[in-house]
């Protein structure tokens, strides 16, 4: 009995310890600025612009990431095709990139390359534009989502899918009606990670979208810009805003997840 309680206690203790450390670290950010100035900073046009742009681009990127990582994760888990483990490794790879490198790689891909030129002919400009923010966030977050969703699908017994198909549903419908809902936990995890990752993407966006004041300015860039301006209040405020928004979003997700079970 003692043994058991100790293990449980140990695990919960660790959870609280790290939550506490993180909380302290985050809280100390909140203590730097003067609350009044934070309020003022919040009201600036720049901050409002940046906040809006951050949320919108993150949501859009999140949607695209989820739309794409689900079929990719499914294909990697259910079908076998030559070169699969290389494909999996390449898809995982950008996780290991400092954002600067990923940004650079995307810049080369969508900049003056044939792909970039091709897209530009269709009026699609990625480099130094808002679209670039989304592309940057998308490529930064996609690998995480794919990896998580892949390993979730691996856990699902294919017999569920067979039953659905023998009841008349095609592969595609079965995927929607059965595989996807069964992957719920993994989808939640990857949605949370994707959204959070998109909110926090900095270096990739900076290189690909440029980081222009009040144009491609998302919260992490506001933060950096304001540090550069020597405007610490404003910088920390955008950091705090980022934290609060993310916290609310994540908490909402977590509550929603808790509800569904």
């Amino acid at each position: 009995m003692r043994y058991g309680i100790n293990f449980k206690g140990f695990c919960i203790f660790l959870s609280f310890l790290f939550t506490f450390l993180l909380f302290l670290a985050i809280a100390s950010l909140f203590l730097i600025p003067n609350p009044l100035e934070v309020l003022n900073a919040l009201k600036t046009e720049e901050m409002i612009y940046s906040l809006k742009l951050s949320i919108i681009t993150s949501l859009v990127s999140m949607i695209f990431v989820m739309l794409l990582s689900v079929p990719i994760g499914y294909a990697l888990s259910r079908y076998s095709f030559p070169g699969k483990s290389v494909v999996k490794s390449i898809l995982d790879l950008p996780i290991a990139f400092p954002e600067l490198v990923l940004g650079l790689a995307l810049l080369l891909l969508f900049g003056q390359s044939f792909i970039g030129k091709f897209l530009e002919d269709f009026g699609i400009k990625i480099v130094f534009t808002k679209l670039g923010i989304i592309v940057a966030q998308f490529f930064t977050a996609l690998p995480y989502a794919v990896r998580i969703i892949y390993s979730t699908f691996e856990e699902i017994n294919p017999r569920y899918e067979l039953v659905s198909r023998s009841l008349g549903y095609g592969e595609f419908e079965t995927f929607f009606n059965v595989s996807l809902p069964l992957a719920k936990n993994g989808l939640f995890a990857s949605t949370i990670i994707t959204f959070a990752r998109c909110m926090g993407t900095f270096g990739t966006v900076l290189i690909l979208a440029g980081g222009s004041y009040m144009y491609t300015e998302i919260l992490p860039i506001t933060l950096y810009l304001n540090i550069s301006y020597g405007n610490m209040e404003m910088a920390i405020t955008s950091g705090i805003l980022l934290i609060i928004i993310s916290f609310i979003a994540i908490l909402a997700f977590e509550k929603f997840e808790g509800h569904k079970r």
Partner: protein
Amino acid sequence: NESQSTSTKKPFEGKTITVLCGAGLMKPMNELIQNFENETGAKINVHYGGSSELFGVLATTGGDIFIPGAYKYTEDAMKKGIILNDTVKNITYHIPVIAVPEGNPKNIRSLEDLAKPNVKVVMGDPNACAIGKVAKKILEKNHLWENVSKNIVVKTPTVNQLLIYIATDQADAAIIWEDMVTWAESKGKVEVVEIPKDKDIIKTIPTAVTIYAKKDSNLEVAKAFNDYISSDKAKEIWKKWGFIPCK
């Protein structure tokens, strides 16, 4: 006191100070630090970074010596009262030049050429980084700001981006610090177009001891280091790495 009682023992043995230094100064700074450590026995922790990152670190948790990429940051820090004002010293000049991609496809020869149609110019954000502010001033001084503005495709918060964009052909020209492009130029990634002295605005890179040195009782070492890197002896090293030391 004790450390001076034995002549063989180095004066700052066992002391450690932290230097916040612009990443662009890395090569000469590494050599200078090595020399200083050998002479004095002090241990120098150097923390390279972009000027604004360094400023952020300094403002939140400190560091003993502050050497940003441009005087502006030292000025900001002085306003915040975290610099010992009497220790501020200029080390080297910081010279803006025009950088263009390899082969100079738009044939940029002068500042005026930046205003030609169809030239894509990338600029530092005048509010965000020192090079941006300087570039704007140079253009204003030459009455080109308005026309060049139309050609600016992006204003970047960091100077590194300018080099990246030029080196990867994303833009046709940028105004950038000369010392930043020496390496890239020698590798044929970019070409440099000098700005005539009369049209240019030359800046300086400063060093200063911070109030945190006082708090950590590293003042003595910090001051010694501060003096050392702006000394005549150090100037040779700065020159060696392509910088032009201040008189």
